[in-house]
């Protein structure tokens, strides 16, 4: 079996920008899933601290991240000196996607890589999965 994507969940603890019901539902589903995963209180804080665990995560192969906007997540990892792999990183956006959409994507076993490449504008940005 190929490497299953690892999962990172961000609780966005220090702001109220992610709907709490979405965060709670995603975390509950992860908690009940039986899979190993990393949960962080706040990805922004870890980025500012350049936490080495982000580098380990970025270097460890396919990854799915439940957090916020892909553009923000991409550059938060860059700030932490831990660039994510373009072809094997998928970011689920709990600010705009429903918990069902996020969970379906987290557990479907495929990585729909969606980090923005280059100077992306609305017309050529990757679409969020339906």
């Amino acid at each position: 079996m190929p490497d299953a994507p690892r999962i990172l969940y961000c609780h966005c603890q220090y702001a109220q920008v992610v709907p709490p019901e979405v965060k709670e539902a995603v975390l509950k589903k992860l908690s009940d899933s039986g899979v190993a995963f990393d949960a962080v209180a706040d990805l922004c804080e870890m980025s500012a601290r350049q936490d080495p665990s982000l580098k380990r995560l970025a270097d460890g192969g396919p990854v799915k991240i439940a957090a916020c906007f892909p553009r923000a997540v991409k550059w938060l990892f860059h700030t932490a000196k831990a660039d994510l792999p373009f072809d094997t990183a998928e970011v689920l956006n709990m600010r705009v996607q429903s918990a069902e959409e996020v969970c379906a994507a987290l557990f479907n076993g495929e990585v729909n890589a969606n980090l923005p490449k280059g100077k992306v504008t609305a017309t050529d940005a990757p679409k969020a999965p339906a």
Partner: protein
Amino acid sequence: MSLTTAATLRVVLYEGTDSPPLASTDRFSALTALLEKGFAVTRAVAGGRVAPHERGSLLVLGQFAGRTPEAEGVTAGTTVRFQDITGLDAARIAQRAEAVQTETGAARHGEWKPWFPVIDYDRCTNCMQCLSFCLFGVYGVDEQNKIQAQNHDNCKTNCPACSRVCPEAAIMFPKYKAGPINGDVVQDSDMGKEKMKIDISSLLGGDVYSQLRQRSDAAKARFSKERDDKKALQERQKCLTKLAQGGDIPMEVLMNLPAPEEILRRAEEAKAKAQAALAANRQ
């Protein structure tokens, strides 16, 4: 100790060999309590390995009943602790983690709201406008004279002002309420509308520093004549309200700006840094 050198504590919730799984509700409660206290938590399951990270301590939680798993790859300067959580509720688990955090000298969470500019280098043209603009020393340049946010904790919480002076919409604050500053895709209309990048100087009717200088001179002259503190305060409040509304800059940030002379000094300093970096890039 700076943000980037402070030691951290990572928590592992271990449900593997010699540590049976928690009940579903207990696991969720424990995870939530730990996250709300600011911890990063790895849930490790059967067959998984527990490995410490490079900078700080590791706390492994599990229902060990007296037997603890092996920690592999322990590096010098790293502390690994095991905590039996059999029978503990979520609040007590979080308390134990906080106690270890204190004992190991790991950074405490929540004392600083992680609000800082995140640069989209796909968009950034290294124009140094942000470096020139910021009065709080958040920005600097690396050894290649490339702009970077260097002093994250100098940034003023909830203030997105520098992102509004960026001509390329390259500065994000991921915790901001609206796009594109929050990291949402930049719309063509964002670039077309001059409104996205608030020209703060225009709010004051021209060059902001020149205005501040004139206001300072005028205030000095006025005070020497009549000492009308009330009028001066009203004028300042009017100006600050205009800035706060136009740029969505928190009033407390504006109210705590230093005196105009100090603003001028810092502005000159920032401008000099930016010019030096631009000159180096032209060579």
